[in-house]
């Protein structure tokens, strides 16, 4: 057994929130740079260049890459040989978020109730997702998600006999409906299988995979490539003003499901797809 103080988790969450909001993910930045090489449209090139310049400035000056510093999702994979000491885990995680958003001058975008809508002024509560895994480590992934793109996400429960074509059409429709609002070029996190809520959770988790890292499963990898190709052919382009690149990456996570079902969830993410992780 290994003891870990929740204060260490709090500190890690705080630093990861800051890193994710100030430093654009390397894989995302690389994908934008490679999009610039493919893009011919002058205006779209200008937009991609300003995205690259923005990332440089944000990192250097420790400014939020985007003013929508999001609602924070904290994923914790906790080894079953770990004993957490020093207090309440979820409180520690939320305190880490609060400290980061205060210290980093990040926007507080969380309201206490969907109807009463009073800003909590701390950007908490965050969403905490906990899994118990083998080992004696704690893996922490923090993703602050902006809602311009979050608002465009969708889920559909397909028939189990639905064709790949129907699923692809659904995903294309989601991207078309998102249009310029979701700040393309996008990263798509897609969850397929499981139950209604596991598909959505998988879609969000899929965004954590670096977009330049190939999917280990051959049939899924093929599907990801086909979806990316079809969506880029839509010509929506950077900020929806036309162009070659509409998606920077398509990441799928799949799971076993029921004989009657084929749930598909699409979590739309903008060109400022953020996350940062560490292992304690």
């Amino acid at each position, binding site marked *: 057994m290994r003891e870990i103080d929740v204060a260490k988790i709090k500190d890690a969450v705080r630093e990861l929130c800051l890193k994710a909001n100030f430093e654009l993910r390397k894989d995302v930045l690389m994908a934008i740079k490679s999009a610039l090489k493919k893009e011919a449209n002058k*205006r779209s090139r200008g*937009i991609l260049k*300003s*995205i690259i*310049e*923005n990332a440089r*400035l*944000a990192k250097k*000056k*420790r*400014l*939020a*890459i*985007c*003013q*929508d*510093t999001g609602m924070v999702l904290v994923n914790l994979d906790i080894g079953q040989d770990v004993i957490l000491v020093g207090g309440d885990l979820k409180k520690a995680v939320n305190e880490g978020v609060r400290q980061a958003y205060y210290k980093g*001058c*990040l*926007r*507080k*975008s969380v309201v206490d109730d969907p109807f009463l*809508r009073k*800003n909590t*002024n701390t950007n908490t509560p965050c969403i905490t997702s906990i899994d118990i895994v083998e080992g004696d480590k704690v893996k922490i992934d923090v993703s602050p998600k*902006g809602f*311009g793109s979050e*608002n465009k996400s969708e889920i559909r429960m397909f028939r189990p006999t639905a064709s790949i074509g129907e699923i692809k059409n659904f995903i294309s429709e989601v991207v078309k409906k998102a*249009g*310029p*609002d979701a*700040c393309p070029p996008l990263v798509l996190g897609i969850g397929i299988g499981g139950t209604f809520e596991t598909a959505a959770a998988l879609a969000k988790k899929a965004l954590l995979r670096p977009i330049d890292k190939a999917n280990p499963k051959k049939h899924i990898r093929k599907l990801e490539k086909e979806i990316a190709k079809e969506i880029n052919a*839509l*010509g929506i*382009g950077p*900020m*929806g*003003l*036309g162009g070659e690149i509409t998606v920077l990456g398509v990441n799928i996570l799949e799971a076993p499901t029921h004989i009657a079902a084929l749930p598909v969830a699409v979590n739309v993410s*903008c*060109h*400022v797809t953020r996350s940062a992780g560490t292992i304690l």
Partner: protein
Amino acid sequence: MKIVSIKTPLSKDAVKDLNAGDEIYLSGTIYTARDAAHKKLEDLIKRGKRVPLNLKDAVIYYAGPTPPPPRRVIGSCGPTTSSRMDPFTPVLIELGMRGMIGKGARSVEVKKAIKKHGCVYFLATGGIGALLSTKVKSAKAILFKDLGPEAIYKLEVKDFPLIVGIDSKGKDLYEKAKRKK
């Protein structure tokens, strides 16, 4: 397409020659307002109260900035999705608002009001709020301060880079982009 510099307040005359797709640099005073502030303004108007903001020839920026880090006037401040403000927009146009800054397409009703009153809708690039913050010279929360990031801020901007999304004739750049494809 031409690139021009314009200054607020924006008269009808100042925007009549702008065309969808033009790239412009905007300088002068603009006001931020997003969902909650729009709702509050609408409530005041519905109750027949005075709107505590002079909207005549004004430009509203759909944005909620991050707080200013030390020695900066404002934090990151890019545009939010404009369509969420669509239901509130025609009435603000009736009250004299000339320009709007945001991202994404607008409703048919908003387009009609823009055309009828000779207004203009500008697009700012989303997700580059750090870069756009360098164009803001001063920022002050002036209304609905209890809303925190959703308060109305008075911003002084210099050469804020924008694209004309919908011009005073009602021409829509997104429609053009769709047709070109």
